[in-house]
């Protein structure tokens, strides 16, 4: 493995990569556990925000700053604010007395163990002497990340995902209209 060789010329060598990876991964895992173990919904939401931010940092490490930025602005800044908004509107005292959803922990453990096992199995499997995961990293230069994503999406020649992207937008539009219809009594 020679990660430095895979990085396009002109960018800098990464700093303390394994350390930051494990740090962020640990934060994510701890955050994720806290999301399901906290009784208080606001605490859970804050743990979720931590997880999402750590995830954004991981994207940065993958030389995908645009994705990281979108992650922060949409998930942490937008969606989680709405989450908190809703949590505060419903009264916490009443919600705490109600039955919690995280009581089915045996099933959860089985499911989690199965998923973990699957991950490990995939990671260790080799076909024709090659791991399923590529050894090196295919990266775009950090300084051009946004432009390259745009090119992938929209460029007349290089773009392949234009149609899928527009379909996704349409789906979101339908969801927005649906939400408006459901929330409004009279239109």
């Amino acid at each position, binding site marked *: 493995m020679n990660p430095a060789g895979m990085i396009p010329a002109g960018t800098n060598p990464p700093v303390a990569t394994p350390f930051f990876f494990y740090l962020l991964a640990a934060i994510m895992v701890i955050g994720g556990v806290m999301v399901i173990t906290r009784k208080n919904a606001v605490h859970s939401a804050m743990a979720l925000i931590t997880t999402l931010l750590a995830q954004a940092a991981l994207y940065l490490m993958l030389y995908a700053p645009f994705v990281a930025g979108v992650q922060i602005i949409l998930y942490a800044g937008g969606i989680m604010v709405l989450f908190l908004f809703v949590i505060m*509107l*419903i009264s916490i005292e009443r919600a705490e007395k109600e039955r919690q959803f995280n009581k089915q922990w045996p099933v959860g453990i089985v499911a989690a163990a199965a998923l973990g096992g699957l991950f490990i199995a995939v990671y260790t499997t080799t076909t024709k002497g090659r791991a399923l995961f590529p050894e090196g990293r295919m990266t775009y230069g950090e300084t051009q990340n946004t432009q390259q994503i745009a090119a992938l999406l929209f460029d007349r020649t290089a773009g392949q995902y234009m149609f899928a992207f527009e379909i996704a937008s349409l789906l979101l539009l339908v969801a927005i209209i649906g939400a408006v219809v459901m929330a409004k009594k009279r239109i």
Partner: protein
Amino acid sequence: MTDPTSLSPLDLETPDKTFLDANELVINMGPQHPATHGVLRVILRLDGEKVMGLECVIGYLHRGVEKIAENRTYTMFNPYVDRMDYVAAVSNGLGYCEAVEKLLNVEAPPRAQYVRVILTELNRMASHQLWLGTHALDIGAITPLFYTFRDREEILKIFEKYCGARLTTHAFRIGGLQYETYDGFEKDVKTFVAFVRPKIDEYEELLTTNRIWLERTKGVGKISGKDAIALGVTGPVLRASGVKWDIRKALPYANYKNFDFDIPTGENGDTYDRYLVRMAEFRQSLRIIEQAVDHIPEGPIMAKVPKVIKPPVGEIYHSIEAPKGELGYFIVSDGSTQPYRIRVRPPSFVNLQALEVMCRGQLVADVIAVIGTLDIVLGEVDR
């Protein structure tokens, strides 16, 4: 004039139930709250930010003025009335002195009458200035407060020069005035009129056409003339609802008959109209003051009033147009030196009752605006 026969108890429309209407929030506003102008406590039932209902809890400043009156002589009670509406102390004194004079069947001499009118109108301006400053502050404009206080200071200086006190002036006596005007009183008043006229334009410049001010006040706290009469609302609040009624014109007292002035009225009865009415009243007060100061007659300042005031047995109701509305005194005399009963009909107390009608279905922010626009003084509400 509204049609009185169609008047029925208020039909109040309950606002629509909205999003998450199960969560009705009860908020206690006051008695310590920056926007309740003293110690008014308002219990708000909110649906989100929408007011479903409210209840005023008053009495935190109750001092038993009416009880005190029964244990004081007529003269001794005179300074007490200043402590009710303490921002318009002169008006309170005028109402009380005139009521007792009526009971004694004497009349203050013309010179005293003119000075009384000048001081009362100055006080009306001072009261409106205080109202404007605090009302604008409640709505979030902080600057008018400083402008109005700067100009109110000039009025208070005149009061101080005349009678030594700035706020609770005790300016009038039963039967006229105690003090002759000081040298240069007329000149001071004229200077003040010339000084304050452009300042009123200044206030208006900041607010009258300000888009945000318009949005915050137009259509807020509406009350129709019909409802206003039914709720006994008086003063600028009533006039803004289109009822052209001012005791100075309707049942003239002092010597208001001699002056030429208009009664400004509004049309919609909303907060903006009340603002405009009071701004117009500034100018009308200036007109009255100008006329009065030009025609102050020479002569005595005190009518012939016995040293010990002992009105004959009887009762009287006398009311004046205070800056806030109809301020009435109902006095029962049993022939002794002490009033048998004095009832004060406070304009703020009655006007405050309209708060619920004006606020229902509005937003919390509007409650603040409406409390401001009612121009209440808690010292008068609670007495």
